[in-house]
């Protein structure tokens, strides 16, 4: 109940405890607390920065998209123009080709007509000769009347 030497022992114990707490306990725990506070603050700041960057990026994306749209519209119109040109060109080509085909067909037809005429002429000549031979018998000599035959065949041509 009374004060005695226990007091001194208790004071020494107390001093040791305080010293130990001061030296080995308080600093590491307190530092880790402070460090965590800093980390959290940094994290929040970074998050905020990220948010800002997102907004910036969205703006940029809108601009890029608009550019791309303009550019694609331009490309489409160019392509349309080119396509029209190609169509026109091919129309022209086809027209030329057709005309050329018609001309060559006409030439061929003409040639064939000519051939047919030549053939017919030959045949008519020989027919006429045969007919004349029948009619005149042996009176007409091929060699003697060559001039007459030629005239006849020329009239037929």
């Amino acid at each position: 109940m009374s004060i005695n030497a226990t007091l001194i022992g208790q004071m020494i114990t107390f001093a040791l405890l305080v010293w130990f707490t001061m030296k080995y306990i308080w600093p590491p725990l307190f530092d880790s607390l402070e460090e965590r506070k800093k980390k959290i603050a940094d994290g929040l700041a970074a998050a905020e920065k990220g948010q800002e960057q997102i907004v910036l990026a969205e703006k940029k994306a809108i601009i890029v998209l608009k550019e791309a749209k303009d550019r694609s519209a331009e490309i489409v119109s160019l392509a349309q123009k080119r396509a029209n040109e190609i169509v026109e060109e091919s129309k022209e080509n086809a027209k030329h080709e057709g005309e050329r085909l018609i001309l060559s067909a006409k030439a061929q037809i003409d040639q064939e007509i000519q051939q047919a005429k030549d053939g017919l002429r030959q045949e008519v000549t020989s027919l006429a000769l045969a007919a004349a031979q029948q009619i005149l018998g042996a009176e007409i000599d091929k060699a003697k009347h060559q001039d007459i035959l030629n005239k006849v065949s020329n009239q037929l041509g």
Partner: protein
Amino acid sequence: MSTEAHAAQGATGYIIHHLTSLSVGEGFWRLNLDTLFFSVVLGAIFVWFFKRAADKATSGVPGLVQNFAELLIEFVDGQVKDTFHGKSQLIAPLALTIFCWVFLFNFMDLFPVDILPGIAGLMGVEYLRVVPSTDLNATFAMSISVFCLIIFYSIKVKGPIGFAKELMFQPFGPWLTPFNLLLKLVEEIAKPISLALRLFGNLYAGELIFILIALLPWYIQPLLSFPWAIFHILIITLQAFIFMVLTIVYLSMAHEDH
């Protein structure tokens, strides 16, 4: 209950037995072994727990131990920052030590009054007082240490002359120096005495009531000791808190130049 020799003396003997320290030596050099033993063990528990937390301290996600230690650290740090505006490496750890140590002292009060003395009795130890804060030596050891720190910081911050001036010329000016000195001395000396006696008185009375309850018939005991124990959970924390806060306040007063 207690040893038979004391049981024979009835209630008074039982109470006295519970409040007698296990001690060796004579006169001033008597040592209360139970107080020393329990305060060292409790101090070791405190140091062990916090050292464990400090060793594993990380600024990442804290574990359970670290979390609890940080809770206390932040609480104590908040108290210190509220009151003390200077810079000191000592005050916050001192406050933490006081809070935890006193709390653990007081916590011993919540063990049923007969358990530890009973076990000690079986081992042949006749007396055992388990709550160190019901020993004036334990409470005065802390308050006198705090008092020494108050004097030390007063002289360190204000200088020996400044401190002497404060003692002599305040609060009523130089014309009333003897009166000022008397007033100041009383004020300073009242600090450690009130610190120590407040804690001692509260815990001594609390323990006494537990002992009185233990004297009642067994079927009444729970009705009384249960609410008293719950109330005591508040008391022991509050007393530890008061001791800590007053220490901070006194030390910050010592740091302030008027």
